[in-house]
């Protein structure tokens, strides 16, 4: 019989890596499966000053590197593959991967969320030509240029601050008349001379000739439209969960976030969810790692009760 893991953790972001750490420390045979970049969204976050203990010089990639080696040091297997489907029936669950399959007694779904698109004409055409969803990836290109940031949450305002290290001018376009970001972040942005804000406004179109040259803005209170010249458009308008493969298997809310109890149990026995993919109030690295720790601990209890008693 092929190898059966105690726990297969789907997704190698902070939630998955923390679950791997806790699972391997309690001597469960565990594997973390990541399809793209270890760390997920945290890997492309430059400033992580809200993660306790990480005040000075801690970037997302640095923190993730440490989480990864920590989990590995205790024996978690880390593999690169893409989860295509899960079969939840029976005591042993199967995870179908792009390159084979894995069997495990429990699953922890920690596949996270991904940025939402703006949905404006031109957005797809200028992808990689001035439209970006990753400030750390692309900020360099806009050195001494001008950029627009769309959105009003933590990510939008934080990334706008980050972009001022490169761009000469950063304009935040937000559809409401106030930000949803944490107060300390808002204060920092408002003090920054390179940042200005256009309130109550949406981006109707992104245009250019080969590369982005400007956006069409519309004030949603007055319906007035204006042309705004810019070299780049950074989009941070929220996230959507990444768990298509679990649709129809575990219970989800209307947006596709997986519903769990406070012990990370989903509607299916032996399947847990952790991190941003879960329906919850606060999606941060600190809550993701906490979810991962709880999921692994409860998974261990489940195995103990189910298979060893």
């Amino acid at each position, binding site marked *: 019989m092929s190898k059966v893991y105690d726990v297969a953790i789907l997704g190698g972001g902070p939630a998955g890596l923390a679950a791997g750490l806790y699972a391997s420390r309690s001597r469960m045979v565990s594997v973390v499966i990541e*399809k*793209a*970049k270890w760390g997920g969204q945290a890997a492309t976050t430059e400033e992580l000053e809200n993660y306790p203990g990480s005040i000075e010089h801690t970037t997302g990639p640095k923190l993730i590197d440490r989480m990864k080696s920590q989990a590995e040091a205790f024996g978690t297997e880390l593999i690169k593959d893409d989860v295509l489907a899960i079969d939840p029936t029976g005591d042993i669950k199967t995870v179908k991967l792009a390159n084979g399959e894995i069997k495990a007694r429990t699953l922890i779904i920690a596949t996270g969320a991904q940025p939402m698109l703006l949905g404006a004409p031109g957005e797809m055409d200028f992808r990689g030509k001035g439209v970006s969803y990753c400030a*750390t990836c692309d900020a360099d290109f806009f050195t001494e240029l001008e950029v627009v940031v769309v959105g009003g949450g933590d990510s939008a305002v934080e990334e706008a601050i980050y972009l001022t290290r490169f761009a000469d001018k950063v304009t935040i376009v937000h559809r409401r008349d106030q930000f949803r970001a944490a107060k300390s972040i808002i204060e920092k942005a408002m003090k920054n001379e390179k940042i200005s804000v256009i309130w109550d406004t949406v981006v109707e179109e992104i245009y250019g000739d080969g590369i982005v040259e400007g956006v069409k803005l519309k004030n949603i209170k007055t319906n007035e439209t204006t042309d705004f010249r810019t070299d780049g458009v950074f989009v941070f308008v929220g996230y959507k969960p990444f768990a298509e493969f679990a649709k129809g298997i575990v219970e989800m809310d209307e947006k596709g976030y997986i519903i769990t109890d406070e012990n990370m149990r989903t509607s299916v026995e032996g399947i847990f969810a952790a991190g941003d993919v879960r329906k919850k109030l606060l999606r941060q690295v600190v809550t993701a790692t906490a979810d991962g720790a709880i999921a692994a601990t409860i998974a261990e209890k489940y195995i103990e009760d189910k298979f060893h008693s």
Partner: protein
Amino acid sequence: MIELNKDNFDAEVVQAEGVVLVDFWGDKCEPCKALMPSVEKLAEQYGNQIKMCKLNTGENRRLAISQKVLGLPTFIVYKNGERVKEISGAENCTPEAIENLIKENL
């Protein structure tokens, strides 16, 4: 893979005959770095049929912008010096998508 810069870009890509794939990447682009091992593998696999190159945009910003590249990761296929196809963005640039890009243009 051939490392491109402003001194060899013309000779290796624009003046080159045949098919060239350029991987535009950067030191700060985590998705790009995560992809690199897969791209290196594809370079070994298809190296006889296609010239595989990479361009560090952090060191060659102007050159990247001259190719209208303002976002990473970006992969562009050039045929006899003319750009024919490209993909951009972390979710679009999967190892499978890059392999398809190569196969389509052989």
